[in-house]
């Protein structure tokens, strides 16, 4: 594809230096890599970093470089290392917990004098909005003794990623660019820069060895490198210093939080009175500037997201300095120790510190009270599986199977990371634990062995199993631990927007390559009892779970069905569910225990509960799962909607997607024996 054609697709790929476009932070990061002439990009999907690699994968065919999802972050980083050893520029983009996974490699590659620029983009999910934890990646940069840059705007993100490649090559170490959710998911205007033309062909340099052993000399070299990194970084003048030596108060803010500091000062009309040091070079830190701030202040407010990385460094400088200003921040508990920095918190602190300041205009107390009164009356809009999500069927049948075996009280159900994690909460409330990616396997193995009277079951998705679950799965087999492993195989990495994984079987250019069958994997590891079912087919799954739970050995149940989110793009014959009002008794089984968002309740005088269910046809995707969640057979699929949809999609009649879906529809038939069973289980 020509570059002109690329421009037509997305302005972010446009070869028009100087043009201003509307872009997302993650796209700005990707653009920086494109401008730097990146030759290999990898990562693993994880909110809030996913769009970086998505953009680079889209760009790779246009600009002719390699970009692919790694099986996990470590594999991605190792691939980037290979590129660097071959003289090529490479980028790895991951969320904060991904840095944990790749850290084993990072902590050793830093001991090697690398060739091609290697940039690690770590995106911290501040406030843990889509994560299990909060974590500050800057400590990893300090830990690995590598340079770290922290952009505050989209233009800086683009430029710093671009520059990070130069710095990495100049110093021979990986460079971290740390972003945060608010930057990565910010959409704003940015200016495009020039795209480098790469004519160097990557080639592994076998004339030298790429090892960090024996490690003392390499470590000494690393120390020397980072010691002199300050001079290199200073030359770029990334740090912003609004110096007001007459002011007794100063703000030192790191990376993206500079935005909050600037806004708080503006709101209070202090932008030309209070010193502001906006730090962008997080490793090494600009300590000479810290001393300049300490020299004229009584109070220093340190602003940063997640931990107290900057604050502790400022305190260390104060300890060396003759003056002794008070340092206020997260460590001192003056700012909230966890969660995002907010303009509100900052203005509150500054109002106390700055004499005679006009406070931030707010609403009066009466209005605030009214707002509070209303707030508590509003129903929550909880998170839920999508309409048509196969996990709903997997969990509904599993909870009924557990109940039918009277195991509810005793079971240990161990969860893992993905959409299926929602099984922790209502309506299923099945999962009792969740830690890191793939951890369910080893955790369940131990529980099943320590407490053999307790039935142990672990739920893991396909992508998570490939990512880090495989070693634990092997452990279950090796220990002969009596765990029932349930694999919710929806053939993609669903939570982050349905990226292809090894179960999808798409190669990096989107062509069909090969798909790994999880049952083959388990068989190779030595699992003797493997059951494969269709997650939509609730009666089938119900009986498979019952069989599996009766076995006292490593057992696997695969609930396979494509993620509803991924299916939305395929040509789809769609029918809709229909509730036969005369049959609906208002028992609320499908609402309380199944919970598809397309099923809604209205008032009705004719039922005992005073309620009846109806289908929101705009939300319903016609998966048919709900038919099994009605003990009175009130829910059916609408045949006329089906006929209409087949007619509308007739030109796709020969397409593979159409055929598979059509085939599957006929497979699911109401199962009378299951309904009978269901009634006894209510």
């Amino acid at each position, binding site marked *: 594809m020509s570059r002109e054609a690329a421009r037509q697709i997305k302005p972010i790929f446009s070869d028009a230096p100087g043009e*201003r476009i*509307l872009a997302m932070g993650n796209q700005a990061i990707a653009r920086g890599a494109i401008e730097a002439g990146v030759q290999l990009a990898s990562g693993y999907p994880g*909110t*809030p970093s996913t769009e970086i690699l998505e953009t680079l994968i889209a760009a790779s065919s246009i600009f002719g470089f390699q970009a692919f999802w790694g099986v996990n972050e470590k594999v991605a980083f190792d691939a980037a290392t290979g590129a660097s050893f071959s003289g090529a520029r490479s980028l790895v983009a991951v969320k904060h917990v991904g840095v944990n996974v790749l850290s084993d490699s990072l902590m050793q590659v830093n001991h090697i004098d690398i060739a091609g620029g290697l940039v690690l983009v770590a995106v911290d*999910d501040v406030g843990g*909005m*889509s994560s299990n934890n909060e974590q500050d990646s800057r400590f990893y940069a300090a830990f690995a003794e590598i340079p770290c840059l922290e952009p505050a705007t989209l233009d800086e993100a683009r430029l710093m990623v671009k520059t990070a490649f130069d710095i990495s090559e100049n110093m021979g170490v990986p460079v971290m660019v740390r972003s945060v*959710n*608010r*930057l990565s*998911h*910010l*959409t*704003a*205007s940015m200016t495009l820069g020039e795209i480098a033309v790469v004519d160097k062909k990557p080639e592994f340099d076998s004339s030298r060895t790429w090892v960090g052993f024996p490690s003392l000399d390499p470590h000494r070299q690393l120390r020397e490198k980072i010691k002199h990194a300050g001079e290199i970084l200073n030359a770029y003048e990334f740090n912003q210093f609004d110096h007001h030596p007459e002011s007794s108060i100063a703000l030192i803010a790191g990376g993206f939080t500079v*935005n*909050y500091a*600037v*806004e708080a000062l*503006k*709101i209070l009309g202090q932008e030309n009175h209070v010193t502001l040091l906006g730090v962008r070079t997080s490793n090494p830190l600009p300590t000479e500037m810290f001393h300049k701030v300490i020299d004229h202040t009584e109070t220093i407010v340190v602003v940063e997201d997640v931990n107290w990385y900057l604050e502790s460094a400022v305190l260390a400088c104060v300890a060396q300095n003759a003056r002794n200003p008070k340092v206020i921040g997260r460590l001192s508990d003056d700012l909230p120790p966890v969660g995002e920095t*907010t*303009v*509100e918190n900052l203005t509150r602190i500054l109002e106390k510190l700055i004499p005679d300041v006009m406070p*931030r*205009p*707010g*609403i009066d107390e009466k*209005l605030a009270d*009214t*707002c*509070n009164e*209303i*707030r508590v*009356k*509003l*129903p*929550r*809009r*909880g*998170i*839920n*599986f*999508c309409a048509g999500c196969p996990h709903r069927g997997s969990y509904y049948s599993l909870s009924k199977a557990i109940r039918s075996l009277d195991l509810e009280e005793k079971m240990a159900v161990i969860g893992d990371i993905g*959409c299926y994690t*929602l099984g922790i909460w*209502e*309506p299923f409330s099945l999962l009792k634990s969740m830690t890191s990616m793939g951890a369910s396997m080893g955790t369940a193995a131990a529980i099943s062995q320590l407490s053999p009277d307790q039935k142990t079951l672990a739920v893991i998705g396909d992508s998570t199993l490939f990512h880090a679950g495989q070693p634990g799965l092997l452990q279950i087999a090796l220990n002969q631990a009596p765990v029932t492993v349930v694999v919710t195989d929806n053939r993609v990495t669903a*939570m*982050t927007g349905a990226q292809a994984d090894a179960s999808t079987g798409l190669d990096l250019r989107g062509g069909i390559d090969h798909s790994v069958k999880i049952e083959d994997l388990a068989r190779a590891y030595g699992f003797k009892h493997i059951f494969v079912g269709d997650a939509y087919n609730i009666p089938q799954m119900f009986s498979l779970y019952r069989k599996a739970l009766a076995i006292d050995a490593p057992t696997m149940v695969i609930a396979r069905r494509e993620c509803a989110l991924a299916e939305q793009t395929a040509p789809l014959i769609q029918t809709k569910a229909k509730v036969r009002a005369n049959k609906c008794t208002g028992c*609320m089984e499908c*609402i*309380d225990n199944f*919970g*598809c*968002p397309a099923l*809604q*309740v209205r008032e009705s005088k004719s039922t005992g509960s005073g309620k009846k269910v109806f289908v929101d046809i*705009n939300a319903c995707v016609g998966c048919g799962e709900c038919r099994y969640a009605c003990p009175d057979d009130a829910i059916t699929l609408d045949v006329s909607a089906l006929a209409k949809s087949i007619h509308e999609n007739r030109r796709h009649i020969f397409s593979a997607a159409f055929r598979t879906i059509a085939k599957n529809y006929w497979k699911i038939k109401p199962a009378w024996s299951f309904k009978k069973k269901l009634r006894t289980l209510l």
Partner: protein
Amino acid sequence: MVLQEKITNIVIAGAGGQGNLFASKVLAQAAMNKGLQVKIAETYGVAMRGGSVHSQVRFGEGEFGPLIPTNGADAILGLEPLEALRLAVDYVYPDTMIVTNTRAIAPVQGKASALPYPSLETIAKHFQEIHAKDFFMLDANALAQDLNDPQSSNMIMVGALIGSAAIPLSLDEISTAVGVQSPAMVLQKNIVALRKGFDFIQSRQQKERSTETC
């Protein structure tokens, strides 16, 4: 009271799949075309699985952060009435304009203990209690149905917001921005929808004005 000079703060409230982000991009693009700084912040990730979807558009001159401070919205655009109210109680200040769609999307009914979805009258009453400027409620889905384009309710709402004159962007400016942000095949439909929402609010305002004078 002017909260922040030269910055316009718009909160867009909705549930999943309502075209929240597209609406914010159109507003931002229009402001960017005028040479202003723009910022859009959005909810994401796990919050999107059926939860509230909430975005914020800020534009103006000079530097400002990504997030609208609490009680700092100039306008609240509701694509769904409950969500509009939910955000209104966080972002309202005495000059906030609220424009919301009346078409409710009920949250998935939890157990019997779940709080009931408030009626439209209750929501309107609450708006009255907390607002000081003005609010408009319209059935954008019905208007979209009139246009035979059920997907267009978000553009109708953007048109309504412009019609309310709460933010310094004109219908022409928005239409140009829609041209940049939409694929060619839906462009015309989007423009028609914008106009529909705009006219609806304008005619309603006119009616109110004429009843005031007599």
